[in-house]
């Protein structure tokens, strides 16, 4: 079996063909004076796509900088300007790239925003960080103040007042976008975008479900790069095309019994973010016979959208996002993953500058163990700041954890 090519064809060249290109296109759009907006995750990007605004994702950019091994240097630039080392490393890295605009930055840096949009749903940091950027660039900033989802277990169980508040802000958002772009809101265009986004979600869900198979046909490394489309450009034909191709390839692999690891002995769930600066850690796990078969991150961005009810369905898609919900939502997602994906261990990485990802992992660990007898590993790391935890130490923790699963 060792001669089998275990790399996926659909995802090879992903970065070069799509991510890198998205930055080139954003710079080009900026040069052509098309509206460019900075956007935070959990913001309903479909609204920008429907208004022909070019979305730029600072969070994605931070992960790019981490993968290129320059994130710490950029974080330090922000720290020198007075931003605490205990703040979110994404925000420090991106602010560092703004302060260090004269440096040679990956992908030429982020294009300057004409305006910025963010939610308060994933974290306070989004709003505060974008507020800083808005001040630096003197660019308008729209905050979609997202009510925290308290106990709503899925899109069908969201508090009515939350939906109403969200919807009323979507109306305010379109008025804002009309002012910023000089373009009229077109409900047919929004409907088209929502239909594509809905399709993207369905394909992404199919892709994830294929990973239930033993051996698992797709690794976390591929998932964390492929989720780019679900997250950043869900309402686009490109997303639909690439996911169709990926799904078909995975179906083939399942049929042929080709898995990620040569000898799959442990199936893991991975919570939160990866170590963007060290995605090779997943290969390290593979070599120990462990495969991350599901990331919570891959199971939180989908949502069905109905072009007939655009506002309400956007509210129902984004409000129950795990990042915007009390802990039982995260626990439920992981419980389901452990059961449905035949999982025997859960990795719970915290993220130094992120309270949302760090506080509550004990509850996840305790509940999963109590209900399913499956062990979890809480490991203190950071997605982009490698000063928090050394590689040797992280590897050691993983190896030890796997041994306990062995017993």
């Amino acid at each position, binding site marked *: 079996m060792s001669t089998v090519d275990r790399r996926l064809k659909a995802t090879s060249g992903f970065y070069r063909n799509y991510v890198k290109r998205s930055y080139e296109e954003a710079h080009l759009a900026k040069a052509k004076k098309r509206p460019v907006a900075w956007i935070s995750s959990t913001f309903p990007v479909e609204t920008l796509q429907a208004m022909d605004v070019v979305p730029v994702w600072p969070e994605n950019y931070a992960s790019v900088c981490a993968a290129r091994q320059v994130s710490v240097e950029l974080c330090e630039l922000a720290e020198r300007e007075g931003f605490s080392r205990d703040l979110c490393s994404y925000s420090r890295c991106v602010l560092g790239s703004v302060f260090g605009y004269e440096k040679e930055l990956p992908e030429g840096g982020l294009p300057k925003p004409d305006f910025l949009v963010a939610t308060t749903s994933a974290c306070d940091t989004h709003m*505060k960080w974008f507020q800083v950027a808005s001040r630096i660039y003197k660019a308008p900033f729209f905050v979609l103040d997202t009510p*925290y989802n308290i106990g709503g277990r899925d899109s069908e169980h969201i508090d009515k007042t939350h939906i109403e508040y969200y919807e009323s802000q979507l109306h305010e958002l379109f008025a804002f976008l009309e002012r910023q772009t000089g373009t009229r809101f077109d409900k047919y265009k929004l409907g088209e975008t929502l239909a594509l986004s809905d399709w993207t979600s369905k394909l992404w869900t199919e892709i994830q479900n294929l990973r239930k198979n033993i051996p698992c046909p797709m690794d976390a490394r591929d998932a964390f790069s492929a989720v780019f489309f679900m997250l950043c450009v869900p309402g686009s034909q490109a997303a639909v095309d690439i996911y169709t191709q990926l799904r078909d390839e995975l179906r083939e692999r399942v049929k042929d019994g080709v898995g990620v690891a040569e000898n799959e002995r442990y199936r893991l769930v991975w919570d939160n973010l990866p170590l963007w600066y060290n995605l090779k850690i997943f290969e390290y796990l593979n070599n120990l016979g462990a495969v991350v078969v599901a990331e919570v991150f891959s199971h939180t961005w989908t949502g069905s959208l109905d072009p007939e009810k655009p506002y309400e369905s956007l509210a129902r898609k984004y409000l129950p996002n795990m990042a915007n919900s*009390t802990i039982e939502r995260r626990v439920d997602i992981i419980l389901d993953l452990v059961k449905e994906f035949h999982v025997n261990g859960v990795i719970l990485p915290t993220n130094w500058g992120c309270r949302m990802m760090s506080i509550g992992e004990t509850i996840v660990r305790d509940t999963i163990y109590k209900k399913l007898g499956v062990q979890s590993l809480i490991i203190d790391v950071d997605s982009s700041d490698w000063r928090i935890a050394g590689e040797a130490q992280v590897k050691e923790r993983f190896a030890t954890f796997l041994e306990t699963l062995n017993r």
Partner: protein
Amino acid sequence: MEALQPFRRILSNRHEAARQWKSRGGGVVGWTCTYTPEEVIYASGALPVMVCGSLGETNLADAYMPSNSCSFARSCFNAALRGEFDYLDAFVESTSCDNREKTFDMWVNYSKVPNLYLINMPHTNTESAHQFYYQQVVKFKEWLEQVLKSQISEDSLKEAVAVYNENRNLLRQIYDLKMKKPPLLSGTEYLEIALSGLVMPKTEHNQLMKALLSEVESRADMPREGLRLMVSGSVMDNTELVRLIESVGGTVVADDWCTGSRYFWNDVEMGNGDPLKAIARRYLDKVPSSFMYMREQRFKHVAELAKRFDVDGVIMFLIKYCDTHMFDAPYLRDELKAMGLPVLYLEWEHSMSGFASLKTRIEAFVEMVGGVQ
């Protein structure tokens, strides 16, 4: 001054008033964010008390919460695990910030306090935010009525507003005593007065403040006048820091804390309409904390206080790991410096561990600023 003693006594036994209230058959509801509409709790007949942390280690909480979580929230949760709040009939938290939201999950899963409630707090004060928040306050009121088995009438809400507005008015008068040169109250004394009001019935607090105001002008034991300083930060639930500053030659004449000036600056503006609406409006429109979108308003408040109280310098004391304040800090610092004010920037654990080095830094700052004058 004799009139200070009751405040001091209550603060040093901060659970005493609540326990007494409880022994007389009353309900006690704990809150921990100053965005909690306390008036609604008061109107239910229950005693609202602020859940605070305590200085020192947080060993019990550390077993559940990571070291990068808000050290104030961790300290409060630690106190809960120690059973310090076993008298609470209910605990109310607000979604004001990530640390609060997430620590609430901790209370739900690991504390023994019955009846926990999380109020959804907007992060802005647009008209749609006001409408949403009002709905949340109505829901909170209904929840309280249910768990406390009491009715909250319009009249009781109006009475609560009157008591709380009087409390804020008295606090403002007392706060202004530090404007005088030399100040009629030290920062420590002021804080003892303000903080004790968070853990005792407001009506009694009002009586004590009135008594103090009638005595203070003729006090014989005037506080020593030091370098006039302002402290800026998130929350302060004890007097240690201010006591430390005042022990090395400073006098804290103004503050930018949610439990300090931001607590009483704005009244509920009671018109003829729905008192609940007036209460809800007050909380969204008050001098904002850093989690609110309108941060320039807080900066303005800080700048005005600095001028009005004629401060010589500012100590920015940020409790780790408060994201929203940390994001604002570089700009607030720059604005203060642009006003010609020296600034000492500190990020510290709520527990005040490393007290000796904290003292050294503050001492050096006071000497440096004092020397320049």
